[in-house]
Protein backbone atom coordinates (compact mmCIF):
# COMPACT_ATOMS: atom_id res chain seq x y z
CA UNK A 1 0.00 0.00 0.00
CA UNK A 2 2.80 2.34 0.95
CA UNK A 3 4.60 1.49 -2.25
CA UNK A 4 1.52 2.23 -4.22
CA UNK A 5 1.11 5.64 -2.58
CA UNK A 6 4.69 6.57 -3.32
CA UNK A 7 4.73 5.33 -6.88
CA UNK A 8 5.61 7.71 -9.67
CA UNK A 9 2.14 7.59 -11.17
CA UNK A 10 0.48 8.57 -7.91
CA UNK A 11 2.97 11.36 -7.26
CA UNK A 12 2.48 12.92 -10.64
CA UNK A 13 -1.28 12.44 -10.81
CA UNK A 14 -2.41 13.65 -7.38
CA UNK A 15 -4.91 16.06 -8.85
CA UNK A 16 -6.43 13.51 -11.20
CA UNK A 17 -6.71 10.97 -8.40
CA UNK A 18 -8.30 13.45 -5.98
CA UNK A 19 -10.90 14.55 -8.48
CA UNK A 20 -11.73 10.97 -9.41
CA UNK A 21 -12.25 10.09 -5.75
CA UNK A 22 -14.52 13.10 -5.29
CA UNK A 23 -16.57 12.03 -8.33
CA UNK A 24 -16.82 8.41 -7.20
CA UNK A 25 -17.96 9.46 -3.73
CA UNK A 26 -20.53 11.79 -5.25
CA UNK A 27 -21.96 9.09 -7.52
CA UNK A 28 -22.01 6.66 -4.59
CA UNK A 29 -24.12 9.16 -2.69
CA UNK A 30 -26.49 9.43 -5.64
CA UNK A 31 -26.58 5.69 -5.97
CA UNK A 32 -27.31 4.97 -2.32
CA UNK A 33 -29.61 7.94 -1.84
CA UNK A 34 -31.70 7.46 -4.94
CA UNK A 35 -31.29 3.88 -6.15
CA UNK A 36 -34.59 3.94 -8.01
CA UNK A 37 -33.14 6.64 -10.28
CA UNK A 38 -29.49 5.73 -10.48
CA UNK A 39 -29.81 2.01 -11.13
CA UNK A 40 -31.71 2.75 -14.32
CA UNK A 41 -30.44 3.89 -17.68
CA UNK A 42 -32.52 7.03 -18.43
CA UNK A 43 -30.67 9.29 -15.96
CA UNK A 44 -27.35 8.40 -17.62
CA UNK A 45 -28.83 9.03 -21.04
CA UNK A 46 -29.96 12.43 -19.82
CA UNK A 47 -26.44 13.16 -18.56
CA UNK A 48 -24.89 12.05 -21.84
CA UNK A 49 -27.35 14.26 -23.66
CA UNK A 50 -26.80 17.45 -21.69
CA UNK A 51 -23.18 17.37 -20.51
CA UNK A 52 -21.43 17.70 -23.91
CA UNK A 53 -22.88 21.17 -24.56
CA UNK A 54 -20.81 22.78 -21.85
CA UNK A 55 -18.29 19.92 -21.62
CA UNK A 56 -16.80 20.63 -25.05
CA UNK A 57 -16.26 24.25 -24.09
CA UNK A 58 -14.81 23.31 -20.70
CA UNK A 59 -12.20 21.05 -22.32
CA UNK A 60 -11.24 23.83 -24.71
CA UNK A 61 -11.25 26.50 -21.98
CA UNK A 62 -8.76 24.41 -19.99
CA UNK A 63 -6.13 25.55 -22.51
CA UNK A 64 -6.91 29.22 -21.87
CA UNK A 65 -6.98 28.78 -18.09
CA UNK A 66 -3.64 26.91 -18.18
CA UNK A 67 -2.23 30.03 -19.84
CA UNK A 68 -3.21 31.95 -16.72
CA UNK A 69 -5.85 33.74 -18.78
CA UNK A 70 -9.63 33.60 -18.71
CA UNK A 71 -12.34 33.95 -21.33
CA UNK A 72 -15.73 35.15 -20.15
CA UNK A 73 -17.05 35.86 -23.63
CA UNK A 74 -17.72 32.30 -24.78
CA UNK A 75 -21.43 32.30 -23.80
CA UNK A 76 -21.95 35.16 -26.24
CA UNK A 77 -19.76 33.52 -28.89
CA UNK A 78 -22.10 30.53 -28.60
CA UNK A 79 -24.99 32.98 -29.09
CA UNK A 80 -23.70 34.81 -32.15
CA UNK A 81 -22.41 31.68 -33.92
CA UNK A 82 -25.68 29.83 -33.27
CA UNK A 83 -27.60 32.77 -34.67
CA UNK A 84 -25.50 32.79 -37.84
CA UNK A 85 -25.82 29.02 -38.11
CA UNK A 86 -29.62 29.32 -37.82
CA UNK A 87 -29.88 32.17 -40.32
CA UNK A 88 -27.76 30.39 -42.93
CA UNK A 89 -29.44 27.02 -42.44
CA UNK A 90 -32.87 28.53 -42.96
CA UNK A 91 -31.89 30.83 -45.82
CA UNK A 92 -29.98 28.15 -47.80
CA UNK A 93 -32.60 25.48 -47.27
CA UNK A 94 -30.33 23.48 -44.98
CA UNK A 95 -26.89 23.81 -46.53
CA UNK A 96 -24.96 22.31 -43.64
CA UNK A 97 -21.46 22.91 -45.01
CA UNK A 98 -21.85 26.62 -45.59
CA UNK A 99 -23.59 27.10 -42.25
CA UNK A 100 -20.99 25.06 -40.37
CA UNK A 101 -18.01 26.77 -41.99
CA UNK A 102 -19.36 30.28 -41.52
CA UNK A 103 -20.45 29.70 -37.92
CA UNK A 104 -17.14 28.15 -36.85
CA UNK A 105 -15.18 30.81 -38.76
CA UNK A 106 -17.10 33.50 -36.92
CA UNK A 107 -16.31 31.70 -33.65
CA UNK A 108 -12.62 31.70 -34.53
CA UNK A 109 -12.81 35.35 -35.52
CA UNK A 110 -14.36 36.21 -32.15
CA UNK A 111 -11.53 34.26 -30.50
CA UNK A 112 -9.01 36.13 -32.62
CA UNK A 113 -10.45 39.45 -31.44
CA UNK A 114 -10.08 38.33 -27.82
CA UNK A 115 -6.53 37.16 -28.48
CA UNK A 116 -5.50 40.40 -30.17
CA UNK A 117 -7.03 42.54 -27.42
CA UNK A 118 -5.09 40.58 -24.82
CA UNK A 119 -1.73 40.31 -26.58
CA UNK A 120 -1.36 43.24 -28.95
CA UNK A 121 -3.36 45.87 -27.06
CA UNK A 122 -2.44 44.52 -23.65
CA UNK A 123 -5.86 44.42 -21.98
CA UNK A 124 -6.10 41.83 -19.16
CA UNK A 125 -8.17 38.94 -20.48
CA UNK A 126 -10.80 39.21 -17.73
CA UNK A 127 -11.52 42.79 -18.78
CA UNK A 128 -11.24 42.30 -22.54
CA UNK A 129 -13.60 39.34 -22.56
CA UNK A 130 -16.21 41.09 -20.41
CA UNK A 131 -16.23 43.66 -23.20
CA UNK A 132 -16.65 41.07 -25.94
CA UNK A 133 -19.20 39.17 -23.83
CA UNK A 134 -21.50 42.19 -23.98
CA UNK A 135 -20.56 43.03 -27.56
CA UNK A 136 -21.47 39.69 -29.14
CA UNK A 137 -24.63 39.29 -27.06
CA UNK A 138 -25.62 42.81 -28.00
CA UNK A 139 -25.10 41.98 -31.66
CA UNK A 140 -27.25 38.86 -31.26
CA UNK A 141 -30.06 41.02 -29.86
CA UNK A 142 -29.73 43.61 -32.59
CA UNK A 143 -29.72 41.07 -35.43
CA UNK A 144 -32.37 38.75 -34.05
CA UNK A 145 -34.56 41.57 -32.70
CA UNK A 146 -35.32 39.24 -29.84
CA UNK A 147 -36.92 36.47 -31.83
CA UNK A 148 -35.84 32.86 -32.23
CA UNK A 149 -35.21 30.80 -35.36
CA UNK A 150 -36.63 27.34 -35.90
CA UNK A 151 -34.38 25.02 -37.91
CA UNK A 152 -36.59 21.98 -37.50
CA UNK A 153 -37.69 22.02 -41.15
CA UNK A 154 -34.16 22.07 -42.55
CA UNK A 155 -32.32 20.00 -39.95
CA UNK A 156 -34.61 17.31 -38.55
CA UNK A 157 -34.09 13.93 -40.16
CA UNK A 158 -30.97 14.95 -42.08
CA UNK A 159 -27.66 13.06 -42.00
CA UNK A 160 -26.04 15.93 -40.09
CA UNK A 161 -28.74 15.78 -37.48
CA UNK A 162 -28.02 12.09 -37.21
CA UNK A 163 -24.27 12.40 -36.70
CA UNK A 164 -24.59 15.29 -34.25
CA UNK A 165 -27.33 14.35 -31.83
CA UNK A 166 -29.22 11.16 -32.68
CA UNK A 167 -28.79 8.03 -30.57
CA UNK A 168 -26.22 5.39 -31.40
CA UNK A 169 -27.88 1.95 -31.16
CA UNK A 170 -30.94 3.85 -30.04
CA UNK A 171 -29.28 4.49 -26.66
CA UNK A 172 -26.08 6.57 -26.66
CA UNK A 173 -26.51 10.21 -27.71
CA UNK A 174 -24.05 11.02 -30.51
CA UNK A 175 -22.97 14.29 -28.86
CA UNK A 176 -21.54 12.24 -26.01
CA UNK A 177 -19.48 10.15 -28.43
CA UNK A 178 -18.16 13.39 -29.97
CA UNK A 179 -17.43 14.74 -26.51
CA UNK A 180 -15.37 11.65 -25.61
CA UNK A 181 -13.49 11.73 -28.92
CA UNK A 182 -12.74 15.46 -28.62
CA UNK A 183 -11.64 15.05 -25.00
CA UNK A 184 -9.18 12.33 -26.01
CA UNK A 185 -7.88 14.39 -28.89
CA UNK A 186 -7.49 17.53 -26.78
CA UNK A 187 -5.79 15.61 -23.98
CA UNK A 188 -3.29 14.37 -26.53
CA UNK A 189 -2.67 17.87 -27.84
CA UNK A 190 -2.49 19.28 -24.31
CA UNK A 191 0.21 16.89 -23.11
CA UNK A 192 2.00 15.72 -26.22
CA UNK A 193 1.80 18.40 -28.87
CA UNK A 194 4.18 21.31 -29.21
CA UNK A 195 1.22 23.68 -28.83
CA UNK A 196 0.10 22.10 -25.54
CA UNK A 197 3.69 22.18 -24.33
CA UNK A 198 3.93 25.89 -25.14
CA UNK A 199 0.62 26.54 -23.36
CA UNK A 200 2.17 25.13 -20.19
CA UNK A 201 5.38 27.16 -20.49
CA UNK A 202 3.62 30.44 -21.24
CA UNK A 203 1.20 29.90 -18.35
CA UNK A 204 4.03 28.98 -16.04
CA UNK A 205 6.24 31.97 -16.72
CA UNK A 206 5.68 34.23 -19.68
CA UNK A 207 9.10 35.90 -19.56
CA UNK A 208 10.98 32.59 -19.36
CA UNK A 209 8.91 31.12 -22.15
CA UNK A 210 9.77 34.04 -24.37
CA UNK A 211 13.46 33.76 -23.61
CA UNK A 212 13.32 30.08 -24.45
CA UNK A 213 12.15 31.05 -27.90
CA UNK A 214 8.42 30.48 -27.55
CA UNK A 215 6.24 33.00 -29.37
CA UNK A 216 4.09 33.99 -26.39
CA UNK A 217 1.61 36.16 -28.30
CA UNK A 218 0.93 33.52 -30.93
CA UNK A 219 0.36 30.83 -28.35
CA UNK A 220 -2.18 33.01 -26.55
CA UNK A 221 -3.96 34.03 -29.74
CA UNK A 222 -4.27 30.42 -30.92
CA UNK A 223 -5.65 29.44 -27.50
CA UNK A 224 -8.43 32.04 -27.75
CA UNK A 225 -9.13 31.11 -31.38
CA UNK A 226 -9.60 27.42 -30.59
CA UNK A 227 -11.94 28.33 -27.74
CA UNK A 228 -13.94 30.42 -30.22
CA UNK A 229 -14.10 27.42 -32.55
CA UNK A 230 -15.27 25.02 -29.87
CA UNK A 231 -17.82 27.52 -28.55
CA UNK A 232 -19.29 27.64 -32.05
CA UNK A 233 -19.25 23.86 -32.22
CA UNK A 234 -21.04 23.58 -28.87
CA UNK A 235 -23.61 26.06 -30.16
CA UNK A 236 -24.19 23.95 -33.27
CA UNK A 237 -24.66 20.81 -31.15
CA UNK A 238 -27.23 22.66 -29.04
CA UNK A 239 -29.02 23.86 -32.16
CA UNK A 240 -29.38 20.29 -33.45
CA UNK A 241 -30.61 19.06 -30.10
CA UNK A 242 -33.19 21.82 -29.71
CA UNK A 243 -33.79 22.47 -33.42
CA UNK A 244 -34.27 26.04 -32.38
CA UNK A 245 -32.23 29.18 -31.84
CA UNK A 246 -33.21 31.53 -29.07
CA UNK A 247 -31.51 34.88 -28.41
CA UNK A 248 -30.29 34.01 -24.91
CA UNK A 249 -28.65 30.80 -26.12
CA UNK A 250 -25.42 30.15 -24.25
CA UNK A 251 -26.12 32.49 -21.37
CA UNK A 252 -26.36 29.78 -18.76
CA UNK A 253 -23.03 28.26 -19.71
CA UNK A 254 -20.56 30.57 -18.03
CA UNK A 255 -20.55 29.33 -14.47
CA UNK A 256 -21.01 25.62 -15.11
CA UNK A 257 -18.23 25.59 -17.69
CA UNK A 258 -15.67 27.47 -15.63
CA UNK A 259 -16.68 25.55 -12.50
CA UNK A 260 -15.95 22.29 -14.33
CA UNK A 261 -12.46 23.53 -15.24
CA UNK A 262 -11.64 24.67 -11.70
CA UNK A 263 -13.21 21.66 -9.97
CA UNK A 264 -11.19 19.57 -12.40
CA UNK A 265 -7.98 20.87 -10.87
CA UNK A 266 -6.61 23.28 -13.45
CA UNK A 267 -4.80 26.09 -11.69
CA UNK A 268 -6.05 29.61 -12.17
CA UNK A 269 -2.43 30.75 -11.76
CA UNK A 270 -1.46 28.99 -14.96
CA UNK A 271 1.17 26.48 -15.98
CA UNK A 272 -0.62 23.46 -14.63
CA UNK A 273 -3.81 21.67 -15.47
CA UNK A 274 -5.46 18.50 -16.61
CA UNK A 275 -7.92 17.70 -19.38
CA UNK A 276 -8.90 14.49 -17.66
CA UNK A 277 -9.69 16.52 -14.53
CA UNK A 278 -11.90 18.86 -16.52
CA UNK A 279 -13.70 15.84 -17.96
CA UNK A 280 -14.42 14.56 -14.45
CA UNK A 281 -15.33 18.13 -13.46
CA UNK A 282 -17.95 18.08 -16.22
CA UNK A 283 -19.37 14.81 -14.86
CA UNK A 284 -19.59 16.34 -11.38
CA UNK A 285 -21.01 19.74 -12.26
CA UNK A 286 -23.28 18.31 -14.94
CA UNK A 287 -24.81 15.73 -12.62
CA UNK A 288 -25.37 17.90 -9.54
CA UNK A 289 -28.76 19.34 -10.41
CA UNK A 290 -30.44 16.04 -11.30
CA UNK A 291 -28.58 14.25 -8.53
CA UNK A 292 -29.70 16.66 -5.84
CA UNK A 293 -33.30 16.58 -6.97
CA UNK A 294 -33.25 12.78 -7.21
CA UNK A 295 -31.95 12.62 -3.66
CA UNK A 296 -35.17 14.33 -2.60
CA UNK A 297 -33.73 17.73 -1.81
CA UNK A 298 -35.51 20.70 -3.28
CA UNK A 299 -34.06 22.57 -6.24
CA UNK A 300 -33.09 25.35 -3.88
CA UNK A 301 -30.13 23.27 -2.77
CA UNK A 302 -28.58 23.06 -6.22
CA UNK A 303 -26.57 26.26 -6.14
CA UNK A 304 -25.66 25.75 -2.51
CA UNK A 305 -24.17 22.31 -3.10
CA UNK A 306 -22.60 23.45 -6.33
CA UNK A 307 -20.82 26.18 -4.41
CA UNK A 308 -19.80 23.75 -1.70
CA UNK A 309 -18.28 21.36 -4.26
CA UNK A 310 -16.29 24.09 -5.96
CA UNK A 311 -15.01 25.52 -2.70
CA UNK A 312 -14.02 22.14 -1.29
CA UNK A 313 -12.32 21.05 -4.51
CA UNK A 314 -10.23 24.17 -4.99
CA UNK A 315 -9.29 24.14 -1.30
CA UNK A 316 -8.01 20.56 -1.61
CA UNK A 317 -5.92 21.52 -4.67
CA UNK A 318 -4.50 24.58 -2.97
CA UNK A 319 -3.43 22.42 -0.02
CA UNK A 320 -1.85 19.78 -2.27
CA UNK A 321 0.03 22.52 -4.06
CA UNK A 322 1.20 24.20 -0.86
CA UNK A 323 2.60 20.96 0.51
CA UNK A 324 4.53 20.46 -2.68
CA UNK A 325 6.30 23.81 -2.63
Amino acid sequence: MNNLLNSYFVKTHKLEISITIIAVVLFLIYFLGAPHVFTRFPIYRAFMQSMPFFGIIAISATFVVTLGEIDLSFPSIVGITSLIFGIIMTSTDGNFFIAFILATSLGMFAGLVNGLLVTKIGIPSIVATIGTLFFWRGLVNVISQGSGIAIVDVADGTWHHMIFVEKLFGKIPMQFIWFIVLTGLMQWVYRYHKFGNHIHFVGDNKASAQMMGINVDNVKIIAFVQLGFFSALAGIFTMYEMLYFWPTQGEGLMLTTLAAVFVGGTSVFGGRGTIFGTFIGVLIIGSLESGIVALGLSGFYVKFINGLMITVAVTVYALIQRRKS
Partner: protein
Amino acid sequence: MAEELLKLQNIYKNFGNVKVLKDVNIKINKGEVVALIGDNGAGKSTLIKVITGVHSPNSGKVFFKEKEVQIKSVAQSRKMGIEAVYQERALCDQQELYRNIFAGREITNSIGFLDIKKQRKEAEKILRDYIGFTSKAITVDSQVMGLSGGEKQGVAFGRSLYFNSDLIVLDEPTMGLSIQETEKVLNFVKGLKNENKSAIFIDHNIIHVYGAADRFIILDRGEVVGEFNKEDISREELVQRMIQLHESGKIKVED
Protein backbone atom coordinates in the same frame (compact mmCIF):
# COMPACT_ATOMS: atom_id res chain seq x y z
CA MET B 1 45.07 37.93 -34.97
CA ALA B 2 42.11 36.32 -33.24
CA GLU B 3 39.15 35.25 -35.30
CA GLU B 4 36.10 37.44 -34.91
CA LEU B 5 32.85 35.79 -33.80
CA LEU B 6 30.41 38.61 -33.09
CA LYS B 7 30.54 42.29 -33.85
CA LEU B 8 27.96 44.93 -32.98
CA GLN B 9 28.25 48.20 -34.88
CA ASN B 10 26.54 51.48 -33.92
CA ILE B 11 23.68 49.78 -32.08
CA TYR B 12 20.84 52.02 -30.91
CA LYS B 13 17.86 50.79 -28.96
CA ASN B 14 14.98 52.87 -27.63
CA PHE B 15 12.00 51.91 -25.53
CA GLY B 16 9.58 54.68 -26.35
CA ASN B 17 11.46 57.87 -25.60
CA VAL B 18 14.06 56.22 -23.44
CA LYS B 19 17.35 55.69 -25.24
CA VAL B 20 18.66 52.53 -23.66
CA LEU B 21 21.57 51.86 -26.01
CA LYS B 22 23.45 54.66 -27.71
CA ASP B 23 25.93 53.88 -30.46
CA VAL B 24 27.28 50.69 -28.93
CA ASN B 25 30.23 49.01 -30.64
CA ILE B 26 31.59 45.75 -29.33
CA LYS B 27 33.45 42.77 -30.69
CA ILE B 28 33.90 39.25 -29.37
CA ASN B 29 36.50 36.85 -30.71
CA LYS B 30 36.41 33.09 -30.84
CA GLY B 31 37.47 31.53 -27.58
CA GLU B 32 37.14 34.78 -25.68
CA VAL B 33 35.20 35.51 -22.51
CA VAL B 34 33.95 39.07 -22.28
CA ALA B 35 32.40 40.60 -19.18
CA LEU B 36 29.86 43.40 -19.44
CA ILE B 37 29.91 45.55 -16.35
CA GLY B 38 28.04 48.63 -15.30
CA ASP B 39 25.44 49.92 -12.90
CA ASN B 40 21.78 49.03 -12.92
CA GLY B 41 20.18 50.69 -15.88
CA ALA B 42 23.41 50.87 -17.85
CA GLY B 43 21.84 48.79 -20.61
CA LYS B 44 23.65 45.50 -20.04
CA SER B 45 20.55 43.35 -20.11
CA THR B 46 19.17 45.12 -23.14
CA LEU B 47 22.45 44.64 -24.95
CA ILE B 48 22.51 40.90 -24.39
CA LYS B 49 18.86 40.67 -25.34
CA VAL B 50 19.72 42.29 -28.65
CA ILE B 51 22.34 39.57 -29.12
CA THR B 52 19.92 36.76 -28.22
CA GLY B 53 17.09 38.04 -30.37
CA VAL B 54 14.67 39.00 -27.59
CA HIS B 55 14.88 42.67 -28.69
CA SER B 56 15.63 44.07 -32.13
CA PRO B 57 17.86 47.15 -32.28
CA ASN B 58 16.38 50.37 -33.72
CA SER B 59 19.48 50.84 -35.83
CA GLY B 60 22.96 49.47 -36.23
CA LYS B 61 24.54 46.37 -37.69
CA VAL B 62 25.22 42.94 -36.27
CA PHE B 63 27.90 40.66 -37.72
CA PHE B 64 28.18 37.00 -36.77
CA LYS B 65 31.13 35.01 -38.10
CA GLU B 66 31.94 38.06 -40.24
CA LYS B 67 28.57 38.02 -42.00
CA GLU B 68 25.96 40.69 -41.47
CA VAL B 69 22.87 39.23 -39.82
CA GLN B 70 19.55 40.45 -38.48
CA ILE B 71 18.60 38.56 -35.36
CA LYS B 72 14.84 38.71 -35.28
CA SER B 73 13.97 35.97 -32.80
CA VAL B 74 15.37 33.76 -30.09
CA ALA B 75 14.86 30.77 -32.34
CA GLN B 76 17.01 32.38 -35.01
CA SER B 77 19.85 33.31 -32.68
CA ARG B 78 19.87 29.76 -31.34
CA LYS B 79 20.03 28.39 -34.85
CA MET B 80 23.07 30.56 -35.54
CA GLY B 81 24.79 29.20 -32.45
CA ILE B 82 24.01 31.75 -29.74
CA GLU B 83 22.68 30.31 -26.54
CA ALA B 84 21.47 32.28 -23.54
CA VAL B 85 21.69 31.20 -19.93
CA TYR B 86 19.45 33.42 -17.85
CA GLN B 87 19.69 33.21 -14.10
CA GLU B 88 16.42 32.14 -12.45
CA ARG B 89 14.40 32.86 -15.54
CA ALA B 90 16.10 30.18 -17.55
CA LEU B 91 13.54 27.54 -16.69
CA CYS B 92 9.82 27.21 -15.97
CA ASP B 93 9.20 25.98 -12.44
CA GLN B 94 6.22 23.69 -12.77
CA GLN B 95 7.35 21.84 -15.88
CA GLU B 96 9.47 18.72 -15.99
CA LEU B 97 13.18 18.95 -16.75
CA TYR B 98 12.95 17.07 -20.02
CA ARG B 99 10.33 19.55 -21.20
CA ASN B 100 12.36 22.53 -20.03
CA ILE B 101 15.52 21.44 -21.79
CA PHE B 102 13.73 21.27 -25.12
CA ALA B 103 11.30 24.17 -24.64
CA GLY B 104 10.99 26.18 -27.83
CA ARG B 105 12.83 23.55 -29.90
CA GLU B 106 10.95 20.40 -29.11
CA ILE B 107 11.79 17.15 -30.82
CA THR B 108 8.59 16.49 -32.76
CA ASN B 109 7.18 14.49 -35.62
CA SER B 110 5.96 16.16 -38.80
CA ILE B 111 2.61 17.24 -37.33
CA GLY B 112 4.11 18.69 -34.18
CA PHE B 113 3.60 15.91 -31.63
CA LEU B 114 6.47 15.54 -29.19
CA ASP B 115 8.82 12.60 -29.25
CA ILE B 116 8.67 12.23 -25.48
CA LYS B 117 10.83 9.13 -25.45
CA LYS B 118 13.66 10.80 -27.33
CA GLN B 119 13.39 14.01 -25.32
CA ARG B 120 13.64 12.06 -22.08
CA LYS B 121 16.58 10.03 -23.35
CA GLU B 122 18.50 13.09 -24.51
CA ALA B 123 17.64 14.95 -21.31
CA GLU B 124 18.98 12.01 -19.31
CA LYS B 125 22.23 12.26 -21.29
CA ILE B 126 22.48 15.99 -20.57
CA LEU B 127 21.86 15.47 -16.87
CA ARG B 128 24.46 12.73 -16.45
CA ASP B 129 27.13 13.62 -19.02
CA TYR B 130 27.08 17.37 -19.40
CA ILE B 131 26.01 18.43 -15.94
CA GLY B 132 27.21 15.50 -13.90
CA PHE B 133 24.12 15.13 -11.74
CA THR B 134 24.50 11.95 -9.81
CA SER B 135 21.78 12.52 -7.27
CA LYS B 136 18.94 10.06 -7.61
CA ALA B 137 16.54 12.72 -6.38
CA ILE B 138 16.77 14.62 -9.65
CA THR B 139 15.46 12.87 -12.72
CA VAL B 140 14.36 14.07 -16.11
CA ASP B 141 10.79 13.98 -14.76
CA SER B 142 11.55 16.27 -11.82
CA GLN B 143 9.84 19.61 -11.76
CA VAL B 144 12.25 22.51 -11.78
CA MET B 145 10.86 24.00 -8.56
CA GLY B 146 12.60 21.39 -6.42
CA LEU B 147 16.06 22.31 -7.72
CA SER B 148 18.58 24.59 -6.00
CA GLY B 149 19.84 27.71 -7.75
CA GLY B 150 23.06 25.98 -8.71
CA GLU B 151 21.27 22.95 -10.08
CA LYS B 152 19.05 25.17 -12.20
CA GLN B 153 22.11 26.97 -13.51
CA GLY B 154 23.68 23.60 -14.22
CA VAL B 155 20.69 22.54 -16.29
CA ALA B 156 20.83 25.76 -18.27
CA PHE B 157 24.56 25.27 -18.93
CA GLY B 158 24.11 21.64 -19.84
CA ARG B 159 21.47 22.68 -22.32
CA SER B 160 23.79 25.21 -23.96
CA LEU B 161 26.59 22.63 -24.27
CA TYR B 162 24.26 20.03 -25.70
CA PHE B 163 23.10 22.34 -28.44
CA ASN B 164 26.73 23.00 -29.29
CA SER B 165 26.57 26.78 -29.44
CA ASP B 166 29.48 29.04 -30.37
CA LEU B 167 28.55 31.94 -28.13
CA ILE B 168 27.09 31.54 -24.69
CA VAL B 169 25.39 34.54 -23.15
CA LEU B 170 25.23 34.52 -19.36
CA ASP B 171 22.99 36.90 -17.45
CA GLU B 172 24.09 37.18 -13.82
CA PRO B 173 25.24 33.56 -13.70
CA THR B 174 26.29 33.63 -10.05
CA MET B 175 23.43 35.59 -8.52
CA GLY B 176 21.94 33.83 -5.53
CA LEU B 177 24.37 30.93 -5.61
CA SER B 178 26.37 29.45 -2.75
CA ILE B 179 30.17 29.77 -2.79
CA GLN B 180 30.72 26.24 -4.09
CA GLU B 181 28.07 26.67 -6.72
CA THR B 182 29.61 29.95 -7.82
CA GLU B 183 32.95 28.20 -8.13
CA LYS B 184 31.40 25.59 -10.39
CA VAL B 185 29.84 28.21 -12.60
CA LEU B 186 33.10 30.13 -12.97
CA ASN B 187 34.96 26.93 -13.78
CA PHE B 188 32.38 26.23 -16.42
CA VAL B 189 32.96 29.63 -17.97
CA LYS B 190 36.73 29.11 -17.97
CA GLY B 191 36.21 25.65 -19.48
CA LEU B 192 34.47 27.15 -22.48
CA LYS B 193 37.72 28.63 -23.68
CA ASN B 194 39.33 25.22 -24.02
CA GLU B 195 36.65 24.32 -26.52
CA ASN B 196 37.23 27.54 -28.45
CA LYS B 197 33.74 28.71 -27.49
CA SER B 198 33.06 32.30 -26.57
CA ALA B 199 31.02 33.78 -23.77
CA ILE B 200 29.68 37.15 -22.84
CA PHE B 201 28.51 37.65 -19.31
CA ILE B 202 27.02 40.13 -16.93
CA ASP B 203 27.82 39.97 -13.27
CA HIS B 204 27.59 42.47 -10.46
CA ASN B 205 30.48 40.97 -8.63
CA ILE B 206 33.73 42.32 -10.05
CA ILE B 207 35.71 39.65 -8.23
CA HIS B 208 33.89 36.95 -10.17
CA VAL B 209 34.16 38.85 -13.39
CA TYR B 210 37.84 39.41 -12.97
CA GLY B 211 38.65 35.77 -12.41
CA ALA B 212 36.76 34.44 -15.38
CA ALA B 213 36.94 37.08 -18.11
CA ASP B 214 39.57 37.98 -20.70
CA ARG B 215 38.22 41.41 -21.39
CA PHE B 216 35.95 43.90 -19.65
CA ILE B 217 33.51 46.24 -21.33
CA ILE B 218 32.08 48.96 -19.15
CA LEU B 219 28.66 50.30 -19.99
CA ASP B 220 27.20 53.47 -18.56
CA ARG B 221 23.79 54.88 -19.44
CA GLY B 222 23.69 53.03 -22.71
CA GLU B 223 27.20 53.81 -23.87
CA VAL B 224 30.46 51.91 -23.86
CA VAL B 225 32.68 54.07 -21.64
CA GLY B 226 35.67 51.81 -21.22
CA GLU B 227 37.23 48.62 -22.43
CA PHE B 228 40.18 46.82 -20.83
CA ASN B 229 42.08 43.63 -21.46
CA LYS B 230 42.84 41.65 -18.37
CA GLU B 231 46.62 42.01 -18.92
CA ASP B 232 46.30 45.76 -18.79
CA ILE B 233 44.39 46.20 -15.58
CA SER B 234 44.58 44.69 -12.12
CA ARG B 235 41.51 43.78 -10.14
CA GLU B 236 42.09 46.72 -7.79
CA GLU B 237 42.38 49.15 -10.66
CA LEU B 238 39.18 47.81 -12.20
CA VAL B 239 37.35 48.27 -8.93
CA GLN B 240 38.78 51.80 -8.66
CA ARG B 241 37.56 52.66 -12.14
CA MET B 242 34.07 51.45 -11.35
CA ILE B 243 33.92 53.48 -8.15
CA GLN B 244 35.14 56.51 -10.05
CA LEU B 245 32.49 55.99 -12.68
CA HIS B 246 29.87 55.69 -10.04
CA GLU B 247 30.90 58.91 -8.33
CA SER B 248 31.74 61.15 -11.25
CA GLY B 249 29.88 59.58 -14.09
CA LYS B 250 33.14 59.46 -16.04
CA ILE B 251 35.94 57.01 -16.56
CA LYS B 252 39.28 58.65 -16.20
CA VAL B 253 41.17 57.97 -19.37
CA GLU B 254 44.90 57.92 -18.93
CA ASP B 255 47.85 57.30 -21.21
